[in-house]
């Protein structure tokens, strides 16, 4: 039998060092690092549960606003269904407009969620701990809303069953040679996989919520927690199943946006038919997705008062992540362009209308938002840790990436191979209403979701706190992390 160590208190009640300088350093470290600043779980559980249960009038005002915008989207969609797609600005050449750009955009912002959770989990990045769930939620609703756009876009919604991926029964259009079908399988796989991944990590938090709520919530969480007790075997299996899901879902994540890009690049259309489109889209998706996660982090930190969980270190880490993705995106965009430009094919040159033609303002706006703004600011730690600055940068990246999708879809189509088909596309009111309305719909679903589900994965935070300690090196105190398997 091993001799017991002197430490007897729980991990959140560790004694401070006696040396005054070290105690001061530790104090400072606790302010900076979430994982050093351990507090009783009983207290933190309540912090998270209170945000779910206490809902002020401001929340309902926001819900009403988002709900009204969602209603506007539904009305616009209804009018479009009864009048036909003719009321939109879509035409024979630009038959794919903002609806398909929205599809790409929403799948894109859905990408970062699972990437942050799964990849950072496998790489054992501690900064993911409080962020993971907020990011996964974007994946969930981003994908669900992206799934609406093919339905909106087909116009005749009653012929929707043509899209169902059973190939040949109707012996007509839906056959699995179509890139649209590959895309649909990929998105379905990703949606189901992300949901499983999210649910598995939610089970211990549902158990936490079950133990500390009453009434209908207790019943609901009790059912969702499936009888979780936190036994060591249960934890062991949870870790293993999360790792398996992470390993499988990362290639699926890559396949999803590659599949989306193939919808475009499999067509012999100038500006689309390019081998680099798959990886380029994946990087673009991660780029806009990470920016979206930053925006959401700022919003939930402000509105739910999660200053304890979401600290400067997390925004700093996400800022560095975003900066890396900016560089990757620039590289891919440049690599895609330079081939066309150097080749000097007349067809491909048509897309260079972006440099001087009617689309030039949008093109330069995109370059400004996606390249100038992040590169000019994100190198500075002071910017990365400032919430207002990060919010503005995040919104710039969203605008830039949205414009990029519109340029790729509508911009390329407006200059196709046959010059007599060249047109300039302008969106009409249905596209504008639907686009803004679906963004509001995403916000609405997200806001309601935070009332029901703990948006911070508290057990992951506790795990980090229980496994992290400080170690004295010379005159300094440094955090050390431990892993026992």
């Amino acid at each position, binding site marked *: 039998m*091993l001799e*017991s160590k002197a*430490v*007897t*208190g*729980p*991990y*959140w009640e560790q004694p401070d060092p006696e040396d005054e300088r070290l105690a001061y350093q530790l104090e400072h470290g606790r302010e900076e690092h979430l994982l050093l600043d351990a507090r*009783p*779980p*009983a207290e933190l559980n309540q912090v998270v549960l209170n945000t779910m249960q206490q809902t002020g009038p401001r929340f309902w005002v926001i819900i009403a606003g988002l709900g009204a915008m969602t209603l506007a989207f539904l009305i616009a969609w209804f009018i479009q269904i009864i009048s036909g797609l003719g009321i939109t600005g879509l035409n024979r050449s630009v038959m794919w407009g903002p609806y398909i750009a929205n599809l790409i955009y929403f799948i894109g912002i859905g990408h970062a969620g699972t990437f942050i959770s799964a990849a950072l989990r496998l790489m054992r990045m501690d900064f993911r701990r409080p962020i993971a769930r907020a990011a996964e939620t974007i994946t969930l609703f981003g994908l669900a809303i992206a799934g609406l756009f093919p339905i909106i876009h087909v116009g005749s919604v009653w012929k929707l069953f043509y899209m*169902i991926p*059973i*190939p*040949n*029964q*109707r*012996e*007509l259009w839906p*056959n*699995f*040679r179509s890139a649209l079908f*590959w895309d649909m*399988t990929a998105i379905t*796989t990703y949606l*189901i*996989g992300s949901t*499983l*991944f999210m649910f*598995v990590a939610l089970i*211990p938090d549902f158990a*936490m919520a079950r*133990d*500390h709520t009453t009434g209908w919530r207790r019943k609901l969480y009790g059912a969702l927690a*499936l*009888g979780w*007790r*936190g*036994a*060591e*075997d*249960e934890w*062991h*299996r*949870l870790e*293993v*199943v999360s790792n*398996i*899901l992470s390993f*499988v*879902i990362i*290639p*699926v994540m890559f*396949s999803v946006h590659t*599949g989306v890009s193939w919808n475009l690049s499999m067509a012999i259309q100038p500006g689309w038919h390019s081998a680099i489109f798959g990886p380029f889209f994946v990087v673009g998706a991660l780029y806009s997705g990470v920016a979206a996660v930053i925006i959401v982090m700022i919003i939930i930190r402000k509105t739910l008062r999660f200053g304890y969980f979401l600290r400067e270190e997390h925004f700093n880490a996400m800022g560095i992540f975003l900066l890396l993705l900016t560089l990757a995106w620039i590289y891919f965009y440049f690599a895609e362009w330079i081939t066309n430009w150097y080749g000097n094919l007349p067809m491909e040159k048509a897309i260079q209308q972006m440099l001087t033609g009617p689309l030039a303002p949008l093109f330069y706006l995109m370059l400004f938002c996606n390249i100038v703004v992040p590169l000019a600011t994100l190198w500075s730690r002071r910017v990365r840790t400032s919430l207002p600055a990060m919010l503005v940068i995040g919104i710039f990246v969203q605008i830039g990436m949205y414009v990029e999708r519109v340029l790729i879809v509508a911009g390329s189509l407006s200059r196709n191979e046959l010059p007599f088909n060249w047109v300039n596309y302008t969106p009409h009111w249905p596209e504008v209403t639907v686009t803004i309305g679906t963004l509001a719909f995403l916000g609405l679903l997200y806001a309601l979701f935070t009332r029901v589900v703990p948006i911070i994965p508290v057990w992951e935070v*506790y*795990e980090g706190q*229980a496994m992290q300690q400080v170690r004295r090196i010379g005159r300094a105190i440094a955090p050390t992390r431990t892993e*026992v*398997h």
Partner: protein
Amino acid sequence: MAELMLLGLFDNVETTADVLDEVRVLGVKDEQITVMSNVPYAAKIFGRKPARLWFLPFTLGGAGVGALLAFFITFVTPQLYRLHVGFQELTPVPPTAIVFFELISLCTMLGAFIGFLLQNRFPILTRRMYDERITEGYIGVEVRAPLGVAEQVVKVFEAHHARVIQREDAANFKPQGIRHLLFWGAVATGGAVVLAIPLLLTYDVVDIPWINTMADTVAVGAQEGPRLAAPAESVPIQGPVLIAGEPATKPLPATATSLERGKALFAINCAMCHGMAGDRQGAEVGKYFPEIPASLGERAAALSDQELFLVITKGKNRMPGLAENLDPGETWDVVNYVRSLSQ
């Protein structure tokens, strides 16, 4: 009251490990002890062995099911409903690879998830020993022991300042047994029914006449509406051409090469409505248009070459003009092939 269930709550992993050591000395087996916490502590921390895992059969089984499903979609279905697109084979390689990848991934994840639930015996339908303070960070130790040993275990718990000690007759906690089986049986049956209904419809086991409005759509033919005059600066081209208002001239002789070209072009542009032999057999689109002639050769025999050329270029009734798809030379090849049908 032969056996007791005990639950003690402790502050700290060190204390818990000490308690476990001492309880083991009392002769309680490892299987009778459960440690509960709100943090995933590895079994090693408490000096215990981790549970044996059974994920491999579940993930492999899932992957196998996924591969079977993909095989069914990509190989079996095209054989059941043959749809020839151009000159491609029924099961082309790139889409097949993608469908295999996605379905194998999906079913691997589902398999791992189901394996997770089954190994943990989730959902738990019976009452089990538990204390809500475990999710507040305290570590629970559950021990199942005969009466005499249990008293000693309680002493160990007390010696290590257990926060709470629950004790209850072990007979109050029944294993899940048949209820669990019934639950999963119901879930599996429900899932099978939900999956089976669309599949029965899809594969025509249950035949429903789907609404199809293709024949009712208003098509605007190329021949309708005012035709624009050629711009003044346009350049006349050489060879057989179609000049507005004048009959088409210079038919090609029906040589073997022309007929062969005509047959290939007919397969691409015409066969989906008229059928390869002009008799609507095997024509997928043609099924919905009863007015398509049952014998194209006979219908064509009543027309001159120039008239046939005009019908192909400009369309007739619901047949679209093919001027965009066929240049005049190719059109004459098709005319030759159509002529050959009635011979």
